[in-house]
C-alpha cells in the first residue's frame, strides 16, 4: 500500500460530511431504527383502526382533520418525537462510550466536534424520515374522503414542520445530555415526561422554559371549546418567528455544548 494524503482533511464540513455518510448508512440498518420504525407507526395503526371503525360501523364520526389534530398530534408531540429523539440523541455520544468503539473515531483525522455534528445530523435525518412517513400515512388514512381538498396539505405541511423542528431541537438537547451524563436516558425521561409535560401548562412566562411551548406556538389556533384545547391548554403562544429563532438558537447552543464537552471530556472506557 502506498500513502497518498487525502485532500481536504482539515476541512470541518468535509469531516462532518464523512461522519454523516458513515452513520447515516449504519443508522439506517441498525436494529434500533427498525424498532423505532414500528414505534413511529403506532399512530398509523390507530388511524387505521379509527378509519375501519368509521367504515364498518357506517357512522360518520368526527372529521379526519379533527381526529388528526387531537389524537395523532398528541401521540407525536407528547410521546413519539420525545422518545425517538431521546434514544437517537443520547446515542450520538453514549453508544461510542458504552460500546467502547470510541477509539476508532478518536484515532481518525476527524475533529471530535465533527463526529458529534455528523452523527447528530445523520440520526436527525433518519428520525425525520421515520416520523414523516408515519405522520403522512396517518393523515392520509384519516382524511381518505377529502384527499382532493388542497387546503388539507397546507395543514399537513404545518404539522410536519412542527415535528421536524421538535426532532431537531430535542435531538440537540439529548445529544448534549448524552455527551455530559452516563445516565442520560434516565435524565432525558425525567425531562421529557416531567419537565416538558408539566411546565408547558403553567400560565404566564414560565411555560416558555419548555421546548414544547415553542413547538405548539406553530399549531393552528384551537376551535373554541374543541378537544384540541388539550394540546393548547393555557398556551400563550410565542410569535412564530420568535419561536423559530428560539428553537434554532436552542439547537445551536445544545449542539455547541455537546461538541465542547465531547472534545474536552475524557471518557474512560470501563472493562
Amino acid at each position: 500500500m502506498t500513502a497518498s494524503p487525502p485532500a481536504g482533511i482539515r476541512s470541518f464540513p468535509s469531516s462532518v460530511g464523512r461522519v454523516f455518510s458513515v452513520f447515516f448508512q449504519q443508522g439506517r440498518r441498525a436494529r434500533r431504527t427498525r424498532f423505532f420504525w414500528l414505534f413511529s407507526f403506532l399512530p398509523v395503526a390507530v388511524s387505521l383502526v379509527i378509519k375501519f371503525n368509521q367504515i364498518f360501523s357506517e357512522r360518520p364520526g368526527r372529521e379526519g382533520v379533527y381526529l388528526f389534530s387531537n389524537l395523532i398530534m398528541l401521540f407525536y408531540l407528547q410521546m413519539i418525537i420525545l422518545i425517538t429523539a431521546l434514544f437517537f440523541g443520547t446515542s450520538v455520544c453514549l453508544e461510542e462510550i458504552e460500546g467502547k468503539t470510541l477509539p476508532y473515531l478518536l484515532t481518525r483525522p476527524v475533529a471530535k466536534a465533527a463526529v458529534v455534528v455528523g452523527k447528530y445530523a445523520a440520526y436527525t435525518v433518519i428520525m425525520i424520515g421515520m416520523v414523516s412517513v408515519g405522520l403522512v400515512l396517518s393523515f392520509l388514512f384519516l382524511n381518505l374522503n377529502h384527499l382532493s381538498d388542497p387546503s388539507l396539505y397546507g395543514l399537513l405541511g404545518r404539522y410536519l414542520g412542527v415535528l421536524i423542528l421538535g426532532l431537531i431541537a430535542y435531538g440537540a438537547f439529548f445529544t448534549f445530555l448524552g455527551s455530559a451524563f452516563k445516565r442520560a436516558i434516565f435524565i432525558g425521561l425525567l425531562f421529557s415526561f416531567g419537565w416538558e409535560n408539566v411546565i408547558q401548562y403553567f400560565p404566564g412566562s414560565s411555560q416558555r422554559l419548555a421546548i414544547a411551548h415553542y413547538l405548539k406556538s406553530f399549531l393552528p389556533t384551537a376551535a373554541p371549546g374543541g378537544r384540541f384545547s388539550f394540546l393548547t391548554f393555557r398556551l400563550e403562544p410565542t410569535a412564530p418567528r420568535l419561536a423559530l429563532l428560539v428553537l434554532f438558537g436552542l439547537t445551536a447552543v445544545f449542539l455547541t455544548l455537546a461538541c465542547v464537552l465531547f472534545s474536552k471530556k475524557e471518557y474512560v472506557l470501563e472493562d
Partner: protein
Amino acid sequence: MTPVIVTCGLSKWYGNVLGLSDVSLEIEPGITGLLGPNGAGKSTLLKLITGQLRPSLGTVRILNQNVRNNPSLFHRIGFCPEHDSFYEEMTGWIFLTSLLSLQGFSAQEVRARAEEALGIVELWADKDRLIRAYSRGMRQRLKVAQAIAHDPEVIILDEPLSGLDPLGKRKLIRLIKTYREEGKTVLVSSHVLPEIEALTKTIILIHQGKVFAQGDIHSIRDLIETHPHMVSIRCAEPRGLAVQLLEKECVLKVHFGPDGRSLLVETNNRDQFFTTLLARIVQSRMEVDEITSPDDNLQAVFDYLVGK
C-alpha cells in the same frame, strides 16, 4: 535515528489513582515492545500517545507534532485498541470501508485499500459476514486491518496478539515484522513475554505506571550489575571446568546437569566471567558443545525488575 515518538515527563492520574508516572521515552523506527503485567499502565501510555487521554503532566510528540487536538496527524498513525469492541451490526467490509472513508479517501481508494487490508489479514472470504458472527481471532485480525489499512507510518497495537490461535499469532508476528522492514515505527503492547520476544529485542518494561527499563534486551540486562546471571555450558569435562571456574570471584555457584555433560554457572559479573571462561577453554583446549544464557530472556529481567 530520529525518534518518532517522544514522551517527556508523561504522567496521568485518574482522580487519586496513579495511571502513569513520569514516563520519558524516545521511540525510533522499528518494532518496540511495551511489556508489563495487566494494569501496569500500558494501555494508558498508548492512549496518551494517541491523544485519547490528556496527560496530567508532560508532553507527547509523534513525528515532531503534538498529538492532542491534532486530528490530521491520524492520517499517519494507525491504532489497534485493546477492547474487543466493534459496531456489531456492521459487516467486516462495511466496518473497514466506513473507517477508511473517515480517513478522507475517495470511494475507489477506500475499496482498494479495504480489499488489500482484508486480504492481508485473511478475512476477505468473510468480509460480508456480520462482525458479531466473527470468532475472537477474526475480530482481532479485523482490528489490526483497520489500523494498517490507511498505510500509516506509525502503527500502535494494544495487545494485538491476544485471542489469536498459535498459527494466527505467527502470521501476525510475521506481518508486523514486515512493517519494520518497510521502515515504519511499530509500538506493540503485550503482557505475554514470548510474544514480545518473538517480535523484537527493543523493549520497554512498564510496571505500576513506571518505566523500569528501556532499550535492547541485552543492554537492559547489563544494567542489572548485581543481579546474578546464569550461564549454561555443555562440554566433555564439566567437573574439571567447574573446579577452575570456582576459583574466580565472579563465580557464585555451580550446578551440574543431570546428563553429566553440562553445568550451570551463576555469576555476578557476566563480562568478567565470559573473559575467564574463554581463556580457560583456550588454555585447556577443552571441547565445548554449547554456551547459553538460560535467563537471558525477558522473563528473567522482568521478574528481577518487578521484584518477584
